[in-house]
């Protein structure tokens, strides 16, 4: 089954073909489940004028925040700016184009992109600024917005375990946006903590089937914690 072996040997190979001006979808929620090493490789490559689609933009100096710092990003599509000071500053100054998108709509847009659904309706955002310029339509007496799908030139994904065919499972809440992102890239690159044998994963328990995955690499992860809250 050589034709299904998605493994690549280097991060350079993992992101071969990534070019200035491309759209990159990134998994992760805050710093949880982010493709740390793929992001670092984008920084190393110095690819510019990127459009990034990701729920958050990391934090100052880590995760996607590094690419903001390095001025590699022209546009962000995100739901949350939150505590990322540089993100907020670049947004308010107009240096960075930001398309704020409700979190559920963002998730659904990527799912739709991967699933061949060009657009869908949602009640989320009706009557708010994000409805500006969008069609509103009534179904069963309620107003809904038309939202269009998102796809990317590259999708970068952080998994837990994968087999060489690219079947992936995620660990705990590090799942988040990753399986959606994985479906919506022209080229989907997954980095995981652990490679397992073909046949080791239970077929009914795979989160991302290998059909969505083009390249696979095993990495080491720092896994920073944003808010370390404990009981003791």
């Amino acid at each position, binding site marked *: 089954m050589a034709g299904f072996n998605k493994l690549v040997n280097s991060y350079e190979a993992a992101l071969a073909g990534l070019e200035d001006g491309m759209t990159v979808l990134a998994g992760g*929620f805050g710093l949880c489940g982010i493709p740390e090493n793929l992001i670092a490789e984008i920084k190393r490559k110095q690819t510019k004028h990127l459009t990034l689609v990701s729920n958050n933009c990391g934090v100052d100096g880590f995760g996607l925040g590094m690419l903001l710092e390095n001025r590699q990003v022209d546009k962000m599509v995100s739901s949350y700016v939150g505590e990322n000071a540089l993100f907020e500053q670049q947004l308010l100054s107009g240096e960075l184009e930001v398309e704020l998108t409700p979190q559920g709509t963002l998730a659904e847009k990527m799912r739709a992109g991967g699933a061949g659904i060009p657009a869908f309706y949602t009640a989320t955002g009706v009557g708010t600024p994000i409805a500006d310029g969008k069609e509103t339509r009534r179904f069963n007496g309620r107003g809904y917005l038309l939202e269009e799908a998102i796809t990317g030139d590259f999708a970068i994904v952080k998994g837990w375990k994968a087999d060489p065919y690219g079947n992936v499972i995620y660990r705990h809440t590090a799942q988040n*946006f990753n399986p959606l992102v994985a479906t919506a890239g022209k080229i989907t690159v997954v980095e995981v903590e652990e490679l397992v044998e073909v046949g080791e994963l239970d077929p009914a328990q795979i989160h991302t089937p290998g059909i969505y995955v083009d390249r696979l690499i095993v990495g080491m992860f720092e896994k920073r914690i944003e808010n370390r809250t404990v009981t003791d």
Partner: protein
Amino acid sequence: MALSRDQMAMRVARELQDGYYVNLGIGIPTLVANYVPDGMAVMLQSENGLLGMGAFPTTQAVDADMINAGKQTVTAIDGSSIFSSAESFAMIRGGHVDLTVLGAFEVDVQGNIASWMIPGKLVKGMGGAMDLVAGANNIIVTMTHASKNGESKLLTQCQLPLTGQGCIKQVLTDLAWLTIEDGAFILRERAPGVSVDEIKAKTQGHLIIPEQVSEMTF
């Protein structure tokens, strides 16, 4: 006296019912989990993809891969489930969550809510709030009744960009419990020792005061 943050959480907790699936926003709403009445069970949904959120972990058990929507390290209870963001918002958008509690900058008599940006000053982003207010039938907004400068947050019309339109029917402030019906705030309960006049003075939107307004007890 105005309610403390914990008293606000206690008051909201009285709206819980056994078997409720509940989404609690960041801040005061999060505290509600501490006041679930004895003998009652609720299951907490965290929109990053966790149904059945538990307590914070011990230091030893902290796991970067187990967080809530506030990016806090948490645990999962027995019987929890973990899923993607698309599945999480399918639950929310589809109306499967029984109660949503979240904060706001402003609400108005039409049930509008503003909570995600102050133009030119602050852009937090809406995160999941727009989906939550659009998807839930049962929402409680918690916030202070007025700003530190004394400006009312219960308005005739929200001034800030909206998070949702016509979706809020219940508000708990540090001064009062109110419902929103037919274009007015209706004062349902007042905080201990807070007068109806004070609430009236600090409510800019049309306020209806029923004959009986009970005082909360804790």
